[in-house]
């Protein structure tokens, strides 16, 4: 119970956030951060039970008919993510208080940040796959709103839409994949599915399910070729970039891969698709980062690279690779979160994020500089920081798979060192440069977050075993699928990984020293045909298609709408009728009485007169005759209710027509002869179809007639002797409910149209006077 409350509490606080923000002003960030901070402590408290393989769980019926359970489960893997989400969440919420100080929409921002946090916790801790999907989509939605927070800027809106379309599209694929997985494994509960790896891998659904799930995970985690949305998402305010687009949301895909790895990995599809895409992303992201001059875009590309490295490690799937992935996940969250927050502080205090304009700020922003420096050293992989440990493990895991893979990982490592230098060292050292604002230290709320994250990078690096038993081992067990015990140590001795690590740092430092020529050299290769180009083209194509079909279908001419409706119905119904049943031939025609025949003739005549009449009143009168004739037929065949209603409707129709005449222009011949012949043919076709339908309906008895039931039960069950009315108000009450609702909506529609017209006329008159 507590677990479910802790996941959902963020949604509750989100509602209160705007009020709290207005009420407490500057202190609101600190107050709101109490919830994520408290959640962090709560999740830490759950770690021992997860480590003992007795994870806290909650489950309640949701939609039992559909096999849906509202279930959460806090095992090691989920808790590692939950801790990143709530811990960094607390720091980001406080940071926001300083960063967006005075923004009129601050309350809304807090609210969406908390919604995101709750949704993300749901992704990490949900046990039911559909529940996970719901939370997954909620993170996409909150990300959309947070990226577009400064919605006055067109670029922010476009970036928000792009991120949403890419991740949302992937989300649809994910849903399909999860459902396939659920039907292959016979359960939607992740905990129950995890024991079914062999069944799943042998299932015919395995291949499509994996592809669809990978599509969802890759789009969410910005894997090549879907990586382009992440750098554009840097339009978001920096706390969002740090939180969603570096530390947590973009790792949702990684989480899913790690979670499902134990049941899906080991096949060629998995190794090549996941490992291959991961490697490509790692290299592309690392390469593109080199030429960036905007601090946040630089960090974004480097995040893409790190996400690629995580995906690669999960794709490799060996126990060592998965352990390395878990450690890298934590290390990256700590140092990249800190660096993003530092970048935001730099932007906030100097007025620019352009690295060519930043330099020598150490004396002005000492605390920020120290936090940024430590985080950068961790990113570069220098001892004794946690990042060093992570890099050693990654290299060791990659070396198991041969020199090529190790080489690729080292290349990405070089990019890491380069980026770390550019972000953590470049702005603070060297010659002081002129910045748009005169720089000064960031407020407490803005240096506290980076300082804590950087401090953790240092502490965990020095005392790695403090977390190995309760955090890393349970999480790695979740990713591997069997209980494992990870031993973390800073010093592994002089082995190939260490040599590679030293080489990475030395060459990376050299690259950093040569950063200016590298940047200007690379910026000449602008890549025009990237995935972003195809995204734009397909978006244009989609819009063009929508415009085209709207122009075709929504022509604005009532007669075309009627054509479309009537021809579609006659075409489809007629096709089915004639292919399945054949033309109905009335076989047994009961005796036709004289007055019946006369009535039928009268109706036909009236209908004909209505179409050829030259006066409106004549046409309406003829229509009325046809209507009354039909009512008489009802009466003759024993349906007094229907007849009475028909009589009333006919009378009202005449009244309505008379009122409408008043507004209509004079009767005139507007259509050409061909048009009228065409209309006549269509009308005959529709009438012919209806006739055939009625005839075949009389012949064919597809289901046992239900009227007997109504006749027998009208009095005992519904206390009424008039079956028609009993059906209307009792047996089929919900149909009637729908009908009067439609009637009401139609009346409001007519009212609105007429009022709009009248008001517009009045406006015109008023303007003319």
């Amino acid at each position, binding site marked *: 119970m507590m677990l479910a409350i802790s996941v959902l509490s963020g949604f509750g606080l989100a509602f209160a956030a705007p009020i709290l923000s207005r009420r407490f002003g500057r202190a609101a960030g600190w107050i709101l951060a109490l919830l994520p901070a408290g959640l962090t402590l709560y999740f830490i408290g759950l770690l021992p039970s997860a480590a003992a393989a007795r994870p806290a769980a909650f489950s309640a019926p949701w939609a039992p008919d559909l096999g849906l359970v509202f279930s959460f489960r806090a095992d090691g893997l989920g808790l590692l993510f939950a801790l990143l989400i709530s811990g960094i969440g607390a720091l980001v919420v406080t940071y926001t208080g300083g960063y967006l100080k005075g923004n009129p929409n601050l309350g809304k921002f807090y609210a969406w940040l908390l919604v995101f946090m709750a949704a993300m916790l749901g992704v990490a801790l949900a046990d039911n796959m559909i529940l996970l999907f719901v939370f997954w989509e909620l993170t996409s939605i909150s990300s959309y709103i947070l990226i577009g927070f400064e919605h006055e800027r067109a670029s922010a809106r476009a970036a928000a839409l792009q991120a949403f379309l890419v991740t949302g599209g992937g989300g649809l694929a994910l849903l399909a994949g999860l459902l396939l997985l659920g039907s292959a494994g016979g359960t939607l509960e992740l905990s129950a599915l995890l024991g079914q790896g062999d069944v799943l891998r042998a299932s015919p659904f395995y291949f499509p399910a994996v592809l669809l799930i990978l599509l969802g995970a890759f789009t969410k985690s910005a894997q090549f070729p879907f990586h382009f949305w992440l750098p554009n998402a840097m339009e978001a305010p920096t706390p969002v970039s740090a939180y969603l687009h570096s530390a947590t949301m973009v790792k949702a895909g990684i989480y899913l891969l790690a979670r499902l790895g134990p049941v899906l990995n080991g096949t060629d599809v998995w190794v090549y698709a996941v490992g291959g895409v991961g490697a490509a992303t790692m290299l592309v992201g690392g390469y593109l980062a080199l030429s960036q001059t905007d601090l946040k875009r630089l960090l974004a590309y480097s995040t893409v690279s790190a996400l690629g490295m995580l995906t690669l490690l999960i794709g490799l799937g060996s126990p060592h690779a998965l352990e390395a992935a878990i450690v890298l996940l934590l290390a990256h969250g700590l140092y990249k979160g800190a660096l993003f927050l530092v970048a935001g502080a730099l932007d906030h205090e100097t007025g620019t994020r352009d690295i060519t304009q930043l330099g020598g700020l150490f004396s002005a922003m000492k605390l920020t500089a120290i936090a940024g420096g430590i985080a950068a050293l961790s990113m570069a992989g220098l001892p004794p920081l946690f990042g060093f440990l992570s890099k050693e493990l990654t290299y060791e895991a990659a070396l198991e798979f041969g020199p090529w893979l190790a080489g690729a990982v080292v290349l990405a490592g070089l990019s890491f060192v380069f980026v770390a230098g550019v972000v953590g060292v470049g702005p603070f050292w060297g010659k002081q440069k002129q910045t748009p604002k005169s720089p000064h230290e960031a407020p407490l709320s803005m240096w506290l977050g980076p300082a804590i994250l950087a401090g953790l990078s240092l502490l965990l690096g020095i005392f790695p075993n403090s977390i190995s038993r309760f955090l890393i081992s349970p999480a790695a067990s979740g990713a591997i699928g069997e209980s494992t015990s990870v031993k973390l140590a800073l010093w592994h001795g002089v082995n190939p990984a260490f040599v590679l690590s030293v080489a990475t740092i030395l060459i990376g430092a050299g690259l950093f020293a040569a950063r200016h020529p590298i940047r200007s050299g690379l910026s000449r290769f602008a890549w025009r045909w990237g995935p972003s180009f195809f995204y734009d083209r397909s978006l244009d194509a989609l819009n063009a298609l929508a415009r085209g079909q709207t122009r075709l279908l929504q022509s604005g001419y009532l007669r075309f709408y009627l054509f479309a409706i009537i021809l579609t119905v006659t075409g489809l119904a007629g096709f089915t009728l004639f292919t399945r049943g054949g033309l109905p031939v009335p076989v047994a025609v009961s005796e036709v009485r004289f007055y019946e025949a006369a009535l039928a003739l009268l109706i036909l005549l009236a209908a004909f007169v209505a179409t050829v009449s030259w006066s409106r009143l004549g046409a309406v009168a003829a229509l009325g005759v046809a209507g009354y004739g039909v009512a008489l037929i009802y009466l003759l065949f024993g349906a007094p209710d229907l007849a009475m209603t028909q009589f009333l409707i006919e009378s009202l129709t005449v009244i309505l027509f008379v009122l409408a005449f008043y507004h209509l222009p004079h009767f005139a011949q507007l259509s050409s002869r061909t048009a009228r012949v065409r209309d006549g043919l269509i009308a005959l076709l529709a009438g012919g179809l209806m006739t055939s339908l009625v005839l075949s309906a009389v012949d064919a008895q597809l289901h046992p007639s239900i009227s007997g039931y109504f006749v027998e039960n009208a009095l005992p069950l519904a206390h009424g002797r008039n079956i*028609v009315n009993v059906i209307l108000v009792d047996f089929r009450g919900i149909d009637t409910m729908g009908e009067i609702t439609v009637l009401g909506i139609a009346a409001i529609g007519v009212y609105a149209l007429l009022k709009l017209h009248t008001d517009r006329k009045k406006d015109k008159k008023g303007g003319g006077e």
Partner: protein
Amino acid sequence: MTSLILRTTTRYLTPLLLIFSVFLFLRGHNQPGGGFAGGLVAAAPFALFSIAFGAAEARRVLQVEPRWLIGVGLLAALASGVIGLLGGYPFLTGTWGYLKLPGFGVLDIGTPLFFDLGVYLAVIGVTLSIIFALEEAE
């Protein structure tokens, strides 16, 4: 339209039609009639009024905004369905009670009656909304 004949007949017809509509509405459960037909008949005198005297006069006689009748009617129908729901039955399940009236014997009163009343009011509202709007449109 200022026709003396129409105006005079409208005045006399109005109470008759209204009584007839209530009659139709009430007998509907056992004999031809019901909320839909009753509602149409009830709308007729107001429609006549709006033709003979103008929509403003018809609105004055009706006293309530026809759009409200739509809403009230729909709500009544909905509420009658919810009553069954409260008893643990599916939405719109009929619930019946008995009313002993001296001289009339036992009268069955059930939620379908309120449902039909909702239909009755909604139909009046729909018909008159459209007719008044047409009449008022210039």
